[in-house]
C-alpha cells in the first residue's frame, strides 16, 4: 500500500469511528455537554469535523471559492455553541458532514502519490498536500478521543 492509500484508509477508518460514536443517540444526547466543564458535544464535534474537512480539502486543496462552514464572521465558537438539541440542527449537521466527505473524496481521488510532495507554503507545517492530509487525519484522531469520553458519559458505551 502506498503512502497516499495508507493515509486515506486511516481517514476512512476514523470517519467510521465518528459515525459509530454518534450512532443511536437522540438530539438531546448528541447536543449534551456530557463532560463538564468542557463545552464540547458530539453534535458540536460533527459540525467541527465537517468544517475542518471542508476547509482543508474543498477550500485549501481544491481552491473552491465559497465561505467556510459554521464560522461566519470569524465566530469560531459558533460551530460548538450553536450545536443545540433540535432534530433539524442534527439532520443538517450529519447531511453536511456526509456531503463534505463526498466532495473531499472527489478531491483526494484526483491526487497521484507524487502530489503529496506539492508545497504551497514552505513555512507552514500544513502548507503541503502531505501536511494537510496528515493534519486532517490526526485532528480526526484527537477528536475521536473527545468522542470516546463524551459517549461514555452519555450512555456508558465504549470501544474503538
Amino acid at each position, binding site marked *: 500500500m502506498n503512502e497516499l492509500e495508507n493515509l486515506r484508509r486511516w481517514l476512512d477508518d476514523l470517519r467510521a469511528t465518528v459515525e459509530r460514536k454518534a450512532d443511536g443517540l437522540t438530539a438531546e444526547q448528541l447536543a449534551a455537554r456530557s463532560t463538564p466543564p468542557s463545552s464540547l458535544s458530539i453534535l458540536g464535534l460533527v459540525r467541527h469535523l465537517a468544517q475542518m474537512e471542508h476547509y482543508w480539502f474543498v477550500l485549501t486543496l481544491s481552491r473552491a471559492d465559497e465561505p467556510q462552514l459554521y464560522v461566519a464572521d470569524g465566530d469560531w465558537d459558533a460551530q460548538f455553541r450553536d450545536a443545540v438539541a433540535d432534530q433539524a440542527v442534527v439532520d443538517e449537521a450529519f447531511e453536511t458532514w456526509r456531503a463534505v466527505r463526498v466532495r473531499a473524496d472527489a478531491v483526494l481521488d484526483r491526487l497521484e502519490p507524487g502530489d503529496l*510532495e506539492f508545497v504551497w507554503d514552505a513555512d507552514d507545517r500544513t502548507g503541503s498536500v502531505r501536511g494537510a492530509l496528515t493534519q486532517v487525519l490526526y485532528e480526526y484522531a484527537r477528536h475521536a478521543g473527545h468522542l470516546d469520553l463524551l459517549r461514555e458519559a452519555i450512555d456508558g458505551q465504549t470501544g474503538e
Partner: protein
Amino acid sequence: MSDMWLPPGEDPREITEQPRGERAVVEGYLRHYRQTFELKLAGLDAEQLARRSVPPSTMSLLGLLRHLASVEMSWNRRVLQDRMELERPYREGGDRDGAFNGAVATEECVAEAWESWRREVAEAEVWLDGDDYDRVVRLDGDEIEVRDIVVHLVEEYARHCGHADLLRECIDGRTGQ
C-alpha cells in the same frame, strides 16, 4: 485558532524548519503528539494525575502515561523488533487494563511511569531511525508495512491526547492544543 496550550515563543513544539517527505512529516507529528501529551500532564501532583476525572471512564492521566509506555514498548520491541515473547508491562495477574487499574496516587507510581515511558520512547526513536518504511512485518497473521505502524502509532497518540484534553480540563480547567 488562538486556543494554544502555551504562548508563542514558549512552546517546545515550535520548529524552525518544516519537515518534508513521508518519514520526516509523520515522525514530526509523532514527536509533536508525544510532546503534547507530556505538556497535558505538566504541573499536576500525584493525586491529580491519578484522578478519574471524567466519570464513568476509568481513565486517568497517569493511567494513560502507563498505557502509552506499554503501547510504545509493544509496537517497537514486540512488533518491529519481532520479539513477541516479551510481556507487555502493567498486566500483572492477566489484567489487560492494568495500566489504568493500577495507576494509583503515589509518588512511586508516578516516577515509575515517567521513567518507563521515557525509556520506551527513547528506545523506539533509536529503532525507528534505522528501520525501513517499506519493510513488512507479520502480526496476528497479517502483513503490515512499517509505514502503517508508524501512522497508527501517531493516530493512537492523537486519540489519547483527546482523552488527555478532557481529563485535564476536568482536573483544573486548563485547555489548549
